[in-house]
């Protein structure tokens, strides 16, 4: 283990009594509690962290926060590995292990760096101009291109951790826990508001954590603790750390990604908060902009504010000898802090003729060499910066000789850009501020306001006051009395000087070197120039052509520089160039966290009938039907699938079967106009249905296509029970409610979905009457309960509704009982039927029974069939309107060549008709082979002892007896079939009438 050679003897928010061991690229290192991985690496003198996306150039630690473009690592290994993690945001923990990514064999010696040598052949968009010949080779080229791109690697094993979602409402949500955010939260909280304060760091405080100045007479850090303590004392305030507000959606709905403390036992790894806030204060701070010059990507070059963070917050020295290059005064604070911490400042370099702000004066007073009217034109060194080349800067041009100043740390600052991401997501409008050289919020679109640096207010005292005012206003907007005014914070902060816009340093001296605008995606000023030269001048074209700002950092440090340089190239104004759109998330969010608990078996809820447990014990195999689990069949040991189905089918045909039909939709319809309502929604007649009778009904969509079918029973004069198919139960209910509440508000009808309230089972087969009679309290004989009759009675001692209806074509009863009695009645019927050979059957046998009978089901109700297509034209009552009836008169719906519902048998009587087969006249016809129709349902009929199928066939009813081919090229099956009537079994319906 190496000593932390670059750790300062004191200072910072780290705990020197809690050393933590960690591994980086196989080296065992040590840091302290409170470190980020980046600060711990710096403490150990590790600066070469990764390789860049395209040219594989060595890259180091560039920032200290979420804007980091360079220091991306692969964290941990195996199932818990995470790619592209920003070292600057990883909270160090004991045993952490990370490696560099996008390099092979090692970050220090990376073969991919050959791309840097070949870089002249790889300008922006080079791939659009080549790899086109021969055409079939793109897949070969692409294979290598894909391998070269990507950054880290994905895990290959399921994520072992879990995640959760949490919903919250609050009066005021404050995004960002820096000076403005703390001020806002404090003011809102003091006014009595329910406040959520979310901060992305693992310690709240934002820039206060690296401030060295005093606030109200105490150190900034103590002031921060003081405010946090007050917030913690208030019961209606939640302070979330490690929590990034990443999305600002419609109607003040915001999302927060919280990384739960790694020390919390049995906690989810991350948590997504979904917050509906009355008011929002965006105190998201500002991001420091880099300066763009030749080879500005070398390890050891970092944002000036980041250098301050490392020295002040983490107590590490990012270098021994520094050059500070800035066009504004804020970076002079870095010079002072570094100087105080024992880093020698080789020089400060400033393009302004005279840096005359008060901070600059302090630097001068400290005896630091200040080069005014000069710029860094190039960084020297490859794996680490070792010198800065400096030239004079006059009237926007470089001049004079190059001076080389040795350094191992080059701090840069090109000014600041307010973090307007969330503001823009909220659809607020931006304005370009010439003085601040940045975009700032101009007009809100939602109930929010920005505060502090997020709207270009930078001085510390102003930030606190601005935040406090925003918090107070937010609370007032929520109807609360404003907070007591805040005494103007006393901060010994000198005023800053003015900034000189400097978007790129361009000299002939470094013309052929690379000046990076987007560090992560290796986009250079030459790339921008090329894009502009070729006409990609819209900012969106520029972004897409060069990939500027498309990295995992979403261009936080590159977008403004990029568009300013584009404006320079086009001789346009920055506001005219505009910005690209800011979209959620603010920083990348773990997919597992977004998914939450609804993954794996919990992806969707499961609906199960009251008899589900019995089915499981009986060894049923289940099938998904929407959310339902339905028994597909009940295999016996040693049976083949076909044998099981045959056994279940023949039991129904010969003796008795019992099937769970609880999943059918059931809608209770009551009211004076219930019958009128049914007349309007169904194609057929209902006025003449007697009480105690059931009828089959057909329902259309307004476009004339069959929507749903089922039986509806008149339970009383003004009371009906409608059944729907399982698949359409929800939509039918909603559609009926729509017609009733939106269009037919004058009808007196009440609808209630009772699908869940009743367990339903169908008892079918020649022995069914005998079986039912054993447990029924009433007469179930043909006179008392004829076909399509309905009676209420007790079954096995439980109140039941008994319907004499049949889907199987046999004598059959559908029995509905309150769901709680479902299992008892099911078991009682099986018990009663034992001597009659009763057999439970599943959906598969049910399908065979209905195919034999030629009933329509889901595959025939494909949303493209009319009643006439299905041979149900007689179900359309002539003398009334109903939903969809008018459409049936449209030319195409009345056309003679429509596909019609028919049956099919194989001419050899043996071979199965393949599922999904298409019907053609000539199986040898060259492709495309004209398709006449298709098989909708197919099965082996154990009753008829031959394969049969149902089909939709053009002019089908004119083709009975015609021979066609059922082709399934997918399986190679090709079978001659004969067209038949669609009812194969008992066409006269004698059996279901029980005669």
């Amino acid at each position, binding site marked *: 283990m190496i000593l932390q050679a670059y750790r300062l003897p004191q200072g910072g928010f780290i705990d020197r009594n809690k050393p933590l061991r960690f591994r980086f690229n196989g080296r065992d290192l040590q840091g302290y509690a409170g470190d980020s991985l980046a600060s711990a690496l710096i403490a150990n003198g590790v600066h070469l962290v990764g390789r860049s996306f395209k040219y594989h150039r060595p890259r180091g630690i560039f920032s200290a926060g979420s804007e980091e473009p360079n220091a991306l690592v692969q964290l941990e290994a195996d199932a818990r*590995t*995470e790619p*592209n993690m920003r070292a600057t945001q990883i909270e160090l923990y004991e045993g952490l292990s990370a490696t560099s990514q996008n390099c092979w064999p090692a970050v220090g010696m990376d073969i991919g760096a050959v791309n840097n040598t070949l870089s*002249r052949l790889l*300008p922006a968009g080079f791939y*659009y*101009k*080549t790899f*086109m010949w021969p*055409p079939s080779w793109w897949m070969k080229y692409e294979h290598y*291109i*894909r391998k070269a791109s*990507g950054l880290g*690697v*994905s895990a290959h*094993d399921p*994520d072992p*951790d879990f995640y959760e979602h949490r919903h919250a409402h609050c009066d005021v949500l404050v995004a960002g826990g820096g000076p403005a955010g703390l001020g806002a939260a404090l003011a809102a909280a003091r006014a009595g508001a329910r406040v959520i304060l979310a901060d992305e760091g693992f310690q709240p405080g934002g820039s206060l954590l690296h401030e060295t100045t005093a606030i109200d007479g105490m150190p900034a850090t103590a002031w921060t603790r003081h405010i946090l303590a007050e917030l913690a004392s208030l019961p209606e305030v939640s302070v979330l750390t490690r929590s990034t507000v990443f*999305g600002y*959606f419609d109607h003040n709905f915001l999302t927060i990604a919280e990384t739960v403390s790694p020390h919390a036992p049995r906690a989810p790894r991350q948590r997504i908060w979904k917050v509906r806030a009355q008011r929002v204060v965006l105190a998201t701070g500002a991001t420091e902009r880099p300066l763009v010059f030749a080879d500005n990507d070398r390890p050891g070059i970092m944002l000036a504010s980041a250098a301050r963070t490392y020295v002040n917050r983490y107590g590490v020295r990012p270098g021994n000898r520094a050059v500070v290059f800035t066009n504004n005064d804020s970076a002079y604070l870095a010079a002072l802090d570094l100087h105080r911490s024992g880093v020698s400042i080789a020089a400060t370099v400033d393009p302004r003729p005279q840096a005359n702000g008060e901070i600059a004066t302090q630097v001068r007073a400290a005896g630091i060499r200040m080069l005014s009217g000069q710029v860094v034109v190039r960084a020297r060194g490859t794996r680490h910066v070792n010198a800065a080349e400096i030239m004079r800067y006059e009237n926007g041009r470089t001049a004079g000789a190059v001076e080389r100043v040795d350094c191992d740390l080059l701090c840069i600052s090109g000014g600041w850009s307010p973090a307007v991401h969330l503001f823009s*997501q909220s659809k607020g409008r931006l304005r370009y501020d010439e003085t601040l050289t940045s975009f700032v919020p101009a007009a809100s679109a939602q109930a929010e306001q920005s505060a502090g640096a997020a709207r270009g207010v930078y001085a510390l005292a102003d930030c606190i006051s601005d935040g406090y005012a925003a918090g107070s206003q937010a609370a007032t907007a929520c109807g609360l009395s404003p907070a007591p005014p805040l005494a103007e914070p006393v901060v010994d902060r000198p005023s800053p000087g003015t900034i000189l816009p400097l978007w790129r340093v361009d000299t002939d001296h470094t013309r*052929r070197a690379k000046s990076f605008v987007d560090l992560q995606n290796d986009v250079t000023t*030459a790339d921008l120039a090329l894009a502009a030269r*070729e*006409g990609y001048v819209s900012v*969106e*074209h520029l972004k897409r052509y060069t990939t500027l700002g498309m990295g*995992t950092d*979403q261009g936080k440090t590159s977008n403004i520089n990029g568009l300013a340089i584009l404006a320079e190239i086009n001789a346009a104004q920055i506001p005219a160039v505009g910005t690209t759109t800011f*979209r*959620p*998330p603010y920083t*990348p*969010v*773990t*997919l*597992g966290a977004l*998914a939450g608990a609804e*993954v*794996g078996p919990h*992806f969707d809820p499961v609906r199960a009938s009251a008899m589900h447990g019995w089915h499981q014990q009986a060894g049923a195999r289940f099938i998904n039907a929407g959310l339902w689990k339905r028994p597909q069949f009940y295999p016996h040991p040693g049976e083949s699938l076909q044998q099981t189905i045959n056994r279940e089918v023949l039991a129904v045909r010969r003796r008795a079967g019992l099937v769970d039909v609880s999943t059918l939709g059931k809608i209770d319809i009551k009211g004076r106009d219930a019958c009128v309502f049914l007349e309007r929604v169904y194609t057929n007649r209902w006025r003449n249905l007697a009480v105690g009778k059931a009828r089959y009904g057909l329902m259309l969509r307004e*476009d004339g296509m069959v*929507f749903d079918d089922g039986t509806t029973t008149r339970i009383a004069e003004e009371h009906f029970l409608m059944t729907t198919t399982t698949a359409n139960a929800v939509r039918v209910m909603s559609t009926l409610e729509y017609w009733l509440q939106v269009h037919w508000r004058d009808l007196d009808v009440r609808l209630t979905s009772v699908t869940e309230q009743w367990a339903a089972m169908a008892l079918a087969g020649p022995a069914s009457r005998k079986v039912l009679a054993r447990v029924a309290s009433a007469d179930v004989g043909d006179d008392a309960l004829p076909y399509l009759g309905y009676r209420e009675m007790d079954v096995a001692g439980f109140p039941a509704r008994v319907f004499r209806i049949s889907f199987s074509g046999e004598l059959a009863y559908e029995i509905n009982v309150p769901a709680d009695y479902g299992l008892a009645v099911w078991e009682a019927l099986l018990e009663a039927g034992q001597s009659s050979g009763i057999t439970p059957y599943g959906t598969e046998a049910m399908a065979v029974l209905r195919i034999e009978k030629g009933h329509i089901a*889901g*595959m025939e109700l494909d*949303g*493209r069939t009319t009643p006439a297509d299905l041979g149900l034209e007689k179900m359309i009552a002539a003398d009334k309107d109903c939903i969809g009836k008018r*459409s049936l008169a*449209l030319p*195409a*719906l009345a056309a003679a060549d429509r596909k019609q519902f028919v049956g099919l048998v194989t001419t050899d009587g043996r071979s199965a008709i393949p*599922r*999904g087969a298409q019907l*053609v006249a000539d199986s040898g016809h060259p*492709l*495309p*082979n004209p*398709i006449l129709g298709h098989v909708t349902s197919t099965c082996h009929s154990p009753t008829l002892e031959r394969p049969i199928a149902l089909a939709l066939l053009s002019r089908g009813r004119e083709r009975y007896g015609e021979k066609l081919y059922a082709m399934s*090229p*997918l399986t190679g099956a090709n079978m001659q079939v004969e067209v038949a009537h669609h009812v194969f079994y008992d066409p006269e319906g004698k059996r279901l009438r029980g005669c």
Partner: protein
Amino acid sequence: MKYSIFSLVRNALSHHERWPLAWRSPDPKREYDAVIIGGGGHGLATAYYLAREHGIGNVAVLEKGYLGGGNTGRNTTIVRSNYYLNANAHFYEFSLKLWERLSVDLNFNVMFSQRGVLNLAHSYADLESYSRRGNAMRLNGIDAELLDRDEVERMVPLLDCSAEARYPIMGGLLQPRGGTARHDAVAWGYARGADARGVDIIQQCEVTGLRRNGNRIVGVETSRGYIGAKKVGLAVAGHSGQVAAMAGLRLPIETHVLQALVSEPVKPVLDTVVTSGAVHFYVSQSDKGELVLGGDLDMYNSYGQRSNLPPVEHAVQSLVALFPSFGRLRMLRTWGGVMDMSMDGSPIIGKTPIDNLYINCGWCYGGFKATPAAGWCFAHTIAQDRPHALNEAFTLDRYAQGHTLDERGAGPFAWMH
């Protein structure tokens, strides 16, 4: 300048300072033989084929923003022709054939990657309907393969093919020739090709009105002045209703927002396009390494091109349910695109009741893969004043006839398609 490895090397020697403009930015002329409204892939392809196939080069493409800034640049880049209904199958298959030689045709690499499009089956009903579709595709001369569970698992090893999944995978329908393409490149490639054939591409030019003489279109009012036009074609999916209303037309279209997202880039983990019918969801991995996910519509009329959490969350849940190892990757960017959702789910390319006004709209979320064929057929329709055989079924008046093309059988509910 022809793009090739040789021109790339030559320009490298001059430090890439001599590349010409990919397209000009001319001022509009007073009149054109044809004006295409909409500078997305469809409008640019139409102009390109008008010039190349019909010799009509005196054409302007008017774009209110920047080229390819609408749905061309917002889609999930999937190209396929796995349709069931004949009219759709033949049209999209023709499109796929154009895709197969598009890079060479345009001399612009659109990176058409035929990595296969796999539809997962989660139930017997899925398998049955995929069989029906796959068989119809094969008889229509389109490639299709039915895979069983094991074949799916071999092809996409990171899929959860276990029986414990909420919707266990039972197989899938694969179209091997389907795949993805680089969406921006399609717009740029067509723009460059059209420009080289004399087409004027005019960006930042918003059409504010259509000028008529009786029942005949004679020109367009724009933010850059009046432009005369012998023929006008609309290709502004997402805003078709707005522009059609300038000609007094109502359309069988609602505008809805479709949500999409990408993950951070990672090294190759997914070599094919995977879609699931049980949930409306699809995913592929871009050449850059990002997982590109398409989700559902917001399910209400909207022109707001913005992200919306519920569909995004559902798409991510679908992804993690299917690929449990992707749970630790991160979502990088989300966006929404405004779709012309037609009332039967199929597009409209054809004539309008107004003479010399033609319309191309109603693409739902299938517009990107249609780009070459839509341009081809729309150009033909404009040049000949009658549809090409491939877009004969896609007329605007088919709704009044009842000739709807309802691939999903969902009925006249735009958001259900």
